[in-house]
């Protein structure tokens, strides 16, 4: 068992290195690649969850980018992340807008086991944590004020801690919602809570405990994104972490207050990815590259000219078959602003990033960050060597496909070389990242060392 794992690791490491070499060599030598063939599979069905970060799919469809690739795509909203993942695994869907953690968790066999890869990262940021009016009232007194009387940002969970303690003293469980056990939202909410010294609970899958409530001060449970506001309004949860427009919806409905965006928790954090099965990518290589091309173009369109196209995008997203929320609600976060407490509108130009900062490139280091959080909270029960983290990342994140798509877009003169200039020689690891709410630095090349830096969470060698 152990030796096979080791062998597997070695094999993967080789793949990674080979992959890195290929991606490094791309873009430097254009006009070499053979012309991209017609798609093997032309009729595709993609799934999504009603969130603004599905925008690249909607835009690629509405702007005809899919059709330009000879792809005839049907886009279908899904009930929840589980249904969506099962759809991709059982072939009902050809691909989908996924939580970054989903392909990773599926590949390591946490939850449903399946080999899912991602050639395209869909966006950066875009989530926020919202609490109910009642909780906000109690939190607000603990938050320092600016000169104009508005709360100082970012709001840390330190302000929530006394409230949680009060509830626990009264014997009331403090419930919060997130969208999926391996969702960005789960890890962000946990990160934010833990940074404020509130324990969000451990998982222990080897003992059959996947509820994630061991030692928890705040009990996190799964609610599909669009139902978050209604669930909070019903009093089942006191707050939640979710993507847009479901935080702005709470403001508009007057049922809650967003306290912190994920941009403030971790500046320019990777969010959704576009997931397909490995089998699909192998069976339909041209289709895979072509759909990646269409998505890259859509992402570029979304960020073009300093978000100039965003109002049009919002209009498309507000159609009932996409996100379907009111134009104003979606526009609130998509057009560079974010409304916290009613009337407290602040400029957050990078709240939704679709193309800037290499947002679409699937970085290995992003995948590794999710793995570190899975390990931190016990979803990965055992210690794993750094090489394992890298190997898994290389298995799931496929910059080689991304670069092939980018290269052919440049070759076809659809996009220019300068659009990808930062990616020349990219090795898949971002430089150590500093902008976390707790100021802990993340270096993707040293996952175990990173895990050991947290006050709350499992550390190397620990097992529940």
């Amino acid at each position, binding site marked *: 068992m152990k030796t096979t794992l080791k062998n597997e690791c070695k094999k993967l490491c080789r793949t990674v290195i080979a992959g890195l070499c290929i991606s490094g060599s791309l873009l430097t030598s254009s006009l070499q690649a053979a012309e991209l063939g017609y798609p093997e599979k032309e009729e595709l069905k993609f799934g999504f969850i009603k969130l603004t970060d599905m925008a690249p799919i909607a835009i690629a469809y509405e702007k005809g980018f899919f059709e330009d690739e000879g792809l005839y795509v049907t886009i279908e909203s899904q009930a929840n992340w589980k249904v969506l993942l*099962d759809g991709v695994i*059982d072939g009902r869907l050809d691909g989908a807008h996924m939580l970054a953690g989903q392909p990773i968790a599926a590949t390591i066999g946490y939850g449903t086991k399946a080999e899912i890869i991602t050639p395209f990262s869909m966006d950066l940021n875009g989530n926020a944590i919202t609490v109910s009016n009642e909780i906000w009232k109690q939190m607000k007194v603990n938050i320092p004020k600016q000169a104009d009387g508005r709360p100082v940002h970012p709001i840390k969970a330190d302000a929530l801690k006394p409230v949680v303690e009060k509830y626990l003293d009264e014997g009331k469980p403090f419930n919060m919602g997130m969208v999926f056990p391996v969702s960005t939202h789960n890890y962000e909410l946990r990160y934010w809570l833990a940074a404020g010294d509130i324990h969000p609970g451990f998982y222990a899958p080897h003992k059959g405990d996947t509820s994630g409530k061991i030692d928890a001060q705040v009990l996190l449970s799964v609610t599909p994104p669009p139902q978050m506001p209604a669930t909070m309004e019903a009093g089942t949860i006191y707050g939640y972490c979710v993507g847009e427009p479901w935080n702005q919806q709470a403001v508009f409905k*007057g049922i809650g207050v967003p306290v912190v965006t994920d941009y403030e928790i971790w500046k320019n954090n990777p969010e959704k990815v576009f997931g397909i099965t490995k089998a699909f990518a192998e069976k339909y290589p041209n289709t895979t590259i072509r759909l990646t091309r269409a998505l890259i173009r859509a992402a570029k369109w979304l960020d073009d000219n300093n978000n100039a196209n965003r109002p049009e995008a919002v209009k498309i997203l507000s159609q*009932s078959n996409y996100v379907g929320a009111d134009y104003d609600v979606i526009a609130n976060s998509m057009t560079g602003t974010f409304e916290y407490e009613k009337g407290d509108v602040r400029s957050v130009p990078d709240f939704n990033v679709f193309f800037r900062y290499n947002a679409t490139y699937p970085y290995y280091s992003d995948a590794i960050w999710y793995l570190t959080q899975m390990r931190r909270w016990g979803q990965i029960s055992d210690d794993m060597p750094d090489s394992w983290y890298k190997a898994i990342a290389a298995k799931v994140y496929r910059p080689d496909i991304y670069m092939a798509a980018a290269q052919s877009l440049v070759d076809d003169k659809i996009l220019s070389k300068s659009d990808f200039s930062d990616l020349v020689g990219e090795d898949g690891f971002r430089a150590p990242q500093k902008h976390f709410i707790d100021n802990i630095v993340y270096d993707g090349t040293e996952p175990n060392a990173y895990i050991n830096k947290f006050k709350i969470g499992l550390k190397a060698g620990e097992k529940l």
Partner: protein
Amino acid sequence: MTAVISKKALGIAPMSNNKMIMSFISEKVQALILPMAGIFCFMLLWSLTASSIDTSLGKFPGPHAVATQVVNLIDEHNAERDKADVFYIRQDERNKVRMAKDPSYQPKVRIYTGKETFLDQILTSLVTVISGFLVAAVIAIPLGIAIGLSKTLNTAINPIIQIFKPVSPLAWLPIVTMVVSALYVSPDPMFAKSFITSLITVTLCSLWPMVINTSFGVVSMNQDWVNVSKVLSLPKHVHIQKIVLPASIPAIFTGMRMSLGIAWMVLIAAEMLSQSPGLGKFVWDEFQNGSSQSLSRIMTAVLTIGLIGYLLDRTMLQLQRILSWDKSSAQL
């Protein structure tokens, strides 16, 4: 005889012409004006209460909001059809370009990939409910007849029916979904998996009332007719075809009307739960969208669902009137 009638008619006609007109009018009043009055009162009550209920999605939709949405939804449908037309033109051009480049290419016309409009969803739900219902009928009627004819079979199967009958088909839905995705594998499926799943769910819930009513109809068949068949020494298949089946038609129809009503209700719920295309998905999507129009759109869908359910029942009733010999059982 004829003389008596004509005399009667002659004698009474001049006197009661007015009376007859009056009674005709009063019948019309009862059949037409009373329901109208009922609807009017309902509308009034609805719009009055609607304006006083505030939800986080705005005011509860009144009749006016619903009327507006009906227009909107039809407009959206037309707009989508226009988009579809453009889509086909574009596709045609693309196919031509590719043919020019690659003469071996067999051009293929793909159906429009855009969104399903409200009217599309209505059609999808209708097709699903009718297909599922027909599948159920094909299974349930022969099964019901077999159970009704054979005491042995009845004793053997009855416990199974009694156990499965009270199970909400929605409880089956996850199992059906998994089984369909496991077994219904084909590279180019004729029907979508979601359609098959909804269809099976509808079939499952339509099955039991039809089986039970059919077997009841067979069991409670007039013994004299059975004796007639015995005296004629009718072979089994002729007996079933000429005696049993027609004799149980009224009971079969009772079961079918019951089933169709349940099936329609269950289908909407199943579509909501499994996100299969149809009116249920429309309602759920709108609920999830949470836009300012969502409630009035949901209300429109609710009324549409009710209206279609009513029309389905009336259609079955008409069918029963045409097909069944027992006109007295074909009442509302």
